């Protein structure tokens, strides 16, 4: 398995800039997820690594070697797509054997049979080996596609939204299987998705991509708890982080219009510039605490049942705030409820750029 590095990659398609100054590092045996909305440049990045496209500038290294001039076959990476791309008139076994029968590989028949058997066992598709692929369900087809990548024993697995055509339940099952597979093989995975739950649940590391630029790279925990800007803050997490614009003064945030005043923990305030006339406050729904003694008050606009918990939408003046509460809490629409906001869990962002103010300060002081 292998370490993959992208350095200062730029890529344009005619007048459209697909990637700008993109650098990232996928460690040996790491599950790295590239997360972003449609059009962010995720698939372009995968195609560059696979050798299906060339960057305009910058370099791609696999195990420290610049592979810029290598053909797709020489790079020894396996690509798994959203659409299964299996040969429909062949059996599952033939589909799995196919990538091993190329002339460059020169594998013996026993070796091929062994690899196919092991892959089929890992993916639990042994009973399907003699079946034609057009007789398979979506989940089975995606397992066979994975099998075709596994038998090759590539240095790197590149996956382009492999689960997005499957229904929710199957996606959940295959998510766990994929992660299990990657851990078992200690394989290097670069996995592309627009689904933040997939990214959070599988990734050792997540790179958040927007408009062709890397916004933040970190563990799921870092991405969730210390988002680099308002884009990351709202893209990761469900419900999306609450954002309110206001002013920070004397240890509290005042949100206008109205008189919504939110205290800020001293430890947090210390890390911020003193006195900000305009800034954006970020609060996760689980840090909005419903109950007496909070000092704040809102009207219940809507209540959603989510099984283990409820998501309550509160209206405070014209502002909207989502709060997560336990399922057993009784809440009536249109009632007025007191609430508090955890003063230690607030995020602060610059009004225009949306950049995390604590980050910006730390980055400045570290030069």
């Amino acid at each position, binding site marked *: 398995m292998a370490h993959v590095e992208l350095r200062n990659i730029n890529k344009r398609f005619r007048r459209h800039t697909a990637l700008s100054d993109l650098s990232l590092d996928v460690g040996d045996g790491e599950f790295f997820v590239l997360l972003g909305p449609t059009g962010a440049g995720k698939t372009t990045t995968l195609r560059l690594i696979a050798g299906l496209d060339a960057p305009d500038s910058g370099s791609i290294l696999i195990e420290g070697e610049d592979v810029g001039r290598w053909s797709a076959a020489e790079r020894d990476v396996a690509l798994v797509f959203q659409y299964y791309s299996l040969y429909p008139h062949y059996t599952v076994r033939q589909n799995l054997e196919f990538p091993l029968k190329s002339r460059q590989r020169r594998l013996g028949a026993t070796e091929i049979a062994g690899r196919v058997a092991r892959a089929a066992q890992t993916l639990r598709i042994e009973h399907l080996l003699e079946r034609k692929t057009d007789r398979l369900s979506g989940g089975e087809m995606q397992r066979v596609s994975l099998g075709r990548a596994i038998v090759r024993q590539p240095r790197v697995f590149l996956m382009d939204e492999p689960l997005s055509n499957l229904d929710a339940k199957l996606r959940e099952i295959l998510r766990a299987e994929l992660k299990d597979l990657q851990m078992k093989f200690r394989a290097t995975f670069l996995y592309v998705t627009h689904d933040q*739950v997939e990214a959070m649940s599988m990734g050792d590391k997540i790179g958040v991509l927007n408009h062709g630029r890397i916004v933040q790279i970190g563990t799921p925990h870092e991405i969730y708890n210390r988002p680099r800007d308002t884009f990351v803050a709202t893209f990761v*997490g469900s419900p999306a982080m609450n954002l309110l614009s206001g002013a920070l003064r004397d240890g509290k945030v005042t949100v206008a219009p109205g008189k919504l005043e939110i205290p800020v923990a001293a430890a947090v305030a210390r890390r911020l510039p003193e006195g900000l006339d305009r800034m954006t406050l970020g609060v*996760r729904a689980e840090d909005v605490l419903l109950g007496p003694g909070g000092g704040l008050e809102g009207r219940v606009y809507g209540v*959603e049942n989510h*099984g283990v918990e409820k998501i309550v939408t509160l209206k405070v003046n014209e502002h909207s705030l989502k709060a997560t509460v336990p399922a057993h809490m009784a809440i009536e629409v249109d009632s007025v409820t007191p609430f508090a906001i955890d003063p230690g869990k607030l995020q602060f962002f610059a009004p225009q750029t949306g950049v995390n103010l604590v980050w910006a300060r730390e980055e400045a002081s570290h030069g």
Partner: protein
Amino acid sequence: MADIVLRDVEKYFGESYIVRKLNLEIRHREFLVLLGPSGCGKTTTLRAIAGLEEIDSGEILIDGRPMQSRQAADRDIAFVFQLFALYPHLSAYENIAFPLRATNEKRSVVDRRVREVASALRIEGLLGKRPSALSGGDMQRVAIGRALVRRPKALLMDEPMGALDAKLREEMRAELKHIHIENEATTVYVTHDQVEAMAMADRIAIMNDGVLQQVGLPADVYQYPANLFVAQFVGSPIMNIVDGTVRPGDGCTDVVLGEDDAVQRFPVELYRKMAGRRQGEDRLAIGVRPEGVLVALQPGDGYFPAEAHIIERLGPYDIVDLRFGTQLFRSRTTSGYVDKAGRAVWARLDEKQTHFFDRRSGESLQVRL
């Protein structure tokens, strides 16, 4: 202003049923969600209520009046499709006004009604725009506005948010539910997305293979699923299910998970409660949601040893895969509770959140502790 009653509704295609013996009452002003996988018959049911599809037997009553002989146009029902079906050459205003133009309403009345609806949907600023200039969410608002402007008795929606992205769906969910509360119309909403169903419904009706599985409040469907299908269709992560047995224990009921992979001591009355509902030593399917699997870092009374496998750190909480014997259970813990994969932990099933199903029929034994 309508209640809708389905009595023994059936629809078949050749020999195979699309909808089978469906009985359902949708109450006046209720928000009822028809939930199920694709091909379960939910859309056919909705279209039958609208009069877009004929039924082969049974009755559909709206406000007590049979609807079979009435045309779709005479049922006073509005339908919102997944694909917005707006007129591209008309402005948002004219799209919303369209159903009223046909009724020869006075211009001033039409104008007032369009503006009322637009205000409720918060699209007043967009009325002059054509559909091509609108975002997906705004197009859907216009489509809903067009449905509401006639003040129909009932609003039927077929996966209206299916084409929107995840973030927008999340916002629209709350908006749509609020519009329903302000509006008087009875709403029937079709979706395959259980999150949407749980979040928006007053009651959920779950269908599979043309057969109604369960009707109930979201909380009831979640806490007391009628069968294995409902248990595993509603809720994410999926409910853990394991084959098992129960037997009388020493001052308790022993609940055996798998082939003695773990034994849990449950209250003694469990065995008695169960005895009346099943025969002999039938194998059971035992179900527990991830939040019903309690995890500890130290051994404790009633806890069995397990190994933490994959840990999904989802933000506000973690989902931890636990291995014990040949079983794999998913549990929900506070964020960061289990620090790393491979760690030895202890687990216990919360008896109030453990479900017992007949393995053969899949039906819940309806045992509540």
